[in-house]
Every structure is written in C-alpha cells, then in structure tokens.
C-alpha cells in the first residue's frame, strides 16, 4: 500500500525535467508539498507530535523508493531529523530539515537550554541551504542531546556532491537554539543512522539501475537482435541483479535492526545495538556501487553517458552516496576490528545471535 502510493507519487512527479531543474538549484516545491500532504515527511514522528508514528520498516520502503527515483530533496534527512527531535520530545518545525553528521563539541553551545546560542561550523551539510532548520547532537553530562537551529543566515558556502545534490557549509555564529533535549541515543547516532538511510537510498538506486538496464537491453538492437539476447550481456545483468538484491536485503536488515533498537523515538535498547547491520549495509551497498554502475553503463553504451538520458541520475548518486556518512572502508574497518576482537571462535556465535 505505502509502497504503491510512494512509487506512484515519485513515478509521476520525479520527471526528467524536475531532476534537471533541481540540479540547477531549483527547489522542487510541488513535490515537497505533495510529500508533506501525504504525511511522508513525518512518518517517524509519534502521533502526539503530529506524525504518522510509523516505524523504520516503513521508512525503508519510502527511502528505497526515493533512491530508486533519485528524488531530489532531503526526504531522508528530514525523516531522520524529525525522528531525532521526537527522541528528545521536540516538535519538528514545518518544512525540510537537515542534520549535522557529527556531534557539536560541548564548547560550541553557550548553555544547555533553549534560548542558548550555537557557534559552530559544519561542512557538507546535505541540503543545508534548502532546509529551514538543522538538527544537531551534542554530548552533555554523558548523554546525547538533540538540538534544533534555524539555518537562516548560517549558509557560509554552497557546495554539491557528484550528483549535484546540495552539500553546503553552515557557519552558526551565536545562532539561537530553538530547542534542546536529552535522549538515550548513542553519541554517533547521526552518522550511524545517516549511513543507514543512505544504504536504503543506494539499494533503491541499484534497483533502478537494474530496471533501466534490463529494459534497455530488451529494446536496443545490435547485430540484428536485442542486446539482451547476447550471453555476455546476460552474464553481466545477472551480476547486476545480484548486487541490487544483496544491497536491498542488507539495507532492509539494517532498518529492521534499527526498529528493534528503537521501536519508538526516545527508546534506544542497548542490547539491540544495530551498528553491525548498519555497517554491513553500508559496506554491501558501497561494494555494489563499485560494480553496478559500470555494468549499467556498459549495457547502455554511449547513450547512458549523455546528460539527456536518465541513467546518470542514479549512477552519480551511487558514486556520491557511497562516501556519505562514512565510506565503505570506514564501516568495514569497524566490522573488521570487531571481528578481530571477537576472534576465531567468537565470529559465528556473534553473527547468529543477531537473528
């Protein structure tokens, strides 16, 4: 149901023209409004705070679809930001939101109550200039606090990733903190869940590559028959299908782990730490992002390299997202250090204890 709704919505609205204009800096206001009206920007917010009170499983479906369609707006960031706010009991302001990937150092805040001031510089903030508000975390007295600031006046420099999605530099200079609240969340929660939302978007983009490539291989005729009939092409498309499927499973598994760790905002069950599944999902998607775009481009031939064709909206996002909220290397190091610490006799019991 949800999947159908969102797929229909993105399918209709995220047109080629929309994607092109978004890449020149135009905010897709209609699409955003549509998402808001369907309650899709607040799915992770409890009803008490005006949200849909859905879980991470629904968020996965939404974000995978957003990734598949390359939806050019900060839906993933907004879902995460509003969830973080809800965890601190803060009502999310209207409009798109973004997050600061790393905790703000203690000294950056002048106090610990609303009305206090934030002085801090953060780079590569997704959609920093388009989002009205940014959500940040900071450690206070051993607890992770979540805070909310306006981005107005804080945009120091515009930037973009390879997919021409905004990645801006925000410089807060005694910016008023609208709200600040304590949570039970881990200190690296934004980077952790950030990696998770990117893994869902990547899984979606990989599925999109597969769909586009299979369709093209069935249509494009060379040497008198569709190229999809050539064994060499079939072998490659089968590999692409495997990469897409594995990334999808790994990402969904990460969201399921997040659902177990955080069945509702504000709750964080330490014994159900989802770091393993999230790291695995980001690593798996990163590896797929190394293989799959090459296959899709190889199948498409020259046309796939033109800006006019839609393929690059997916491949450039994969090349960008694989590095965001931690590269595959970084998350793999974490998994590897963990495995080395568990040792020969600990690896398998640990893996199977997870489900």
């Amino acid at each position, binding site marked *: 149901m949800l999947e159908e709704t969102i797929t229909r919505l993105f399918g209709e609205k995220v047109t080629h023209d929309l994607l092109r204009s978004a890449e020149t800096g135009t905010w897709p206001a209609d699409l955003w409004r549509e998402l808001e009206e369907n309650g899709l920007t607040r799915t992770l917010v409890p009803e008490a705070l005006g949200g849909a009170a859905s879980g991470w499983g629904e968020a996965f479906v939404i974000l995978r679809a957003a990734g598949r369609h390359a939806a050019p707006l900060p839906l993933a960031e907004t879902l995460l930001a509003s969830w973080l706010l809800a965890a601190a009991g803060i009502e999310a302001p209207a409009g798109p939101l973004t997050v600061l990937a790393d905790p703000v150092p203690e000294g950056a805040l002048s106090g610990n109550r609303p009305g206090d001031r934030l002085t801090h510089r953060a780079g590569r903030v997704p959609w920093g200039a388009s989002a009205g508000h940014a959500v940040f975390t900071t450690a206070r007295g051993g607890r992770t606090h979540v805070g909310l600031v306006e981005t107005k006046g804080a945009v120091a420099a515009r930037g973009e990733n390879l997919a021409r999605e905004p990645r801006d530099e925000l410089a807060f200079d005694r910016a008023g903190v609208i709200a600040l609240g304590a949570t039970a969340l881990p200190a690296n929660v934004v980077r952790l869940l950030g990696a998770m939302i990117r893994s869902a978007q990547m899984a979606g983009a990989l599925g999109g590559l597969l769909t586009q490539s299979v369709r093209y291989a*069935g249509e494009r005729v060379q040497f008198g028959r569709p190229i999809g009939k050539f064994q060499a092409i079939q072998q490659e498309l*089968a590999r692409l299908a495997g990469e897409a499927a594995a990334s999808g499973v790994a990402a969904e598994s990460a969201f399921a782990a997040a659902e177990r760790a955080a069945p509702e905002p504000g709750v964080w069950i330490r014994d159900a730490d989802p770091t393993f599944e999230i790291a695995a999902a980001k*690593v798996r998607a990163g*590896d797929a992002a190394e293989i799959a775009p090459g296959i899709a481009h190889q199948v498409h031939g020259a046309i796939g390299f033109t800006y006019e064709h839609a393929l690059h909206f997916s491949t450039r996002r994969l090349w960008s997202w694989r590095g965001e909220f931690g590269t595959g290397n970084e998350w793999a190091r974490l998994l590897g250090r963990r495995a080395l610490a568990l040792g020969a006799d600990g*690896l398998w019991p640990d893996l199977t204890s997870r489900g």
Partner: protein
Amino acid sequence: MNEFKFDLCRLPQETKALRDEVRAFLAEHLRDYPPSLRAYTWTGYDREFSRKVGSRGWIGMTWPRQYGGGERSAFERYVVLEEMLAAGAPVGAHWVGDRQSGPLLLRFGTEAQRRNLIPRICRGEITFCIGMSEPDSGSDLASIRARATKAEGGFRLSGTKLWTSGAHSCDFMIGLFRTDPDAPDRHAGLSQFIVDLRTPGITIRPIRDLAGDEHFCEVIFEDALVPADALVGQEGEGWNQVIAELAFERSGPERYLSCHPLLVELLRAMPGDADDGAAAAIGRQVAHLATLRTMSLAVAGLLEAGRNPLMEACVVKDLGGVFEQAMPAFAQSLLDLEPRFDAGASEYQRALALLVQIAPSFSLRGGTREILRIIIARGLGLR
C-alpha cells in the same frame, strides 16, 4: 521484468535452544576434529557421525513423523544445517539423503519406498548419491545416454555415470536413466531409479582428484537388474522430477559456508596488530557473509511459506559461490603463508591448501556459473 523479492525472515526465538544443543553436540563430538578436516565441510564423510546426528533427530527434521521424520520447521532444520557447516562437521554421509533423496521420495516415491527408506535415512544408516552426469553430459543433462530397459523382473541398467560424488561409500544411487530412447523431445523419456549399489553388474571406480582425495566416482552399469519398484515416480517423468530436485539444492547455507572454516582459522592466525587495510578487508568479508546469510534465510522463509522463490535461490547461489570461491585468495592476500599439506604445515596452511585447490570447483556444482546466470537473466525477462 520480475523484480526479485526477498522478504526478510528472522529465525524464531525457539530455535535458540536448538542451536545451543547443536553446539554442545558438536563441541563434544568434534573436539579433536582438526581444521584441515573441517575444511571439507559437507564433503567430509563419517557414517558414525551421521548415525549420531540421526539419533539426535537432526536428519529429516521436517519430514512426517510416520516415516521417522521430526515434523519440525524449516527454520529448525536451517539452524542445524548452518551450525554443522559453520563448524565444518563431516555431514557428507547423510547430506544427500537429507537434502535431496529423502525429499524426492517423499514427493514422488511409493508408499513402500518411503516406508522402507525414509526411516533409515533419518537414523543416518543409509547413504545416497546422485547419478546424473555422464561422460558426455556435464551441464547438459538432457543428453543422458545411460539406459534402463524393461526386463523380466524389473529394469536392466546399462551405461556409465560420471562425477557421482561418494558413490564408492554409498548404499544407494538415485539415478537418471533413459527409458524411452525414441522420445521425440530430449527431455522426455527419462526416468529416475533407486539403485542398490550392491546390485550385480555395477562397478564403482573412485576417481582421484587433484588434491589427492577420492570423492568423485565413475559408476558403470552392465545390464544390472533392478526390480520394477526401483522406479521413482512416473516413468518418463525423470526430467521434471530432477528439475524439482535441483531447486532444493540452490540456496541453503552450504552456498556460502563452504570456506567458513578457513575464515575462522584465518582469524586465529591473524597477527594482533593487523593494520587498517587488513581490518577493512576482514570487515568486508563479514558484511558479505552476514548479507548472504540474511538472503539465504529469506529464501528459506519463502519456501516455508509455500512460495516458490526459484530466482531468489539462484541469486543466492551465484553470490554465495563468488563469495566462498574467493575466500582462499582473500586469505592469501592477508597472510603470506604457503598453502601446503606436508609434515610441517600448520592446520591453517592445510585448510588453505585444500581450499585453494578445490574452490575453483564451487562454480561447477549443480550447474555452472554461466548457466546459473543465464537462468537469472531469464528471470529478469531477458531471453
């Protein structure tokens, strides 16, 4: 296009106790079983061990109680299987019976065949092999030439089966024979038989492999007479029955755990001060392993739910095969230790030596990788 659909599936909470039981059993019975033998995983053959497994009720776990089965869930079976494989337990003697022959007989066998054989499979008493390939038919099973001819008292079998794993130590073969040489379609006119390998007229010649082991066999039939009730299922339906059987084969934990004992020993052998590059390389393996397991479990869940996830199973087999086949090279990229099996070799080196040599065969088992990918491509709607 068919989009592949893996619905996530977690093992039910009840399986925890079972897992602990299996681990305790393995800890007890494999205490002195070295890594170099564990590396054989499901090709390790030990009738004694299989009888012990049978006595615990871990063979034919999902089958009806009336035939000696356990009527347990596919998940419980999955847990037993993956624990055995991860530990590199010698499950070879009951492997085929539990995985292929039993399900085949339950599905297509006569009541008498089931009563006679299934309980003994469950007890780990009898062992099976699969007679499909022939000298001139590898991946192309429809080209089978071995014949079964109706005769006084049953069928006379003639011809040669090749690459029959473990035939020299098995009691029965489930063999595919041509019963109607004149069938218009190459896939028609084939039938399956349960062949008692002690039948006169059968010669079994083990074939030494490159690693020095005898695992494959050539089985020669010279007018060997099997009774009429050796026929499994319908005469002429062998091809369709085999296809159904192959599907059982595709996505279990054996599809990505064949080199798991090596990964375990690699972790044991790694120096304490592994650098960041080594840590990342290991982490990447772990991520792939975890993902494959989740995918394999998803397929098991779909099967348990009565769905037919044929393509998903192919994808797991393909990815799993690439993963496990690459493991020896991965190990060598991290540790500069020679793969060897002579007197001074460590257990890690022995396990590595075996797997360096046999891992290339993993992409041949149950159809080559190329054919598997063509099947997947068809599943994507390409043909």
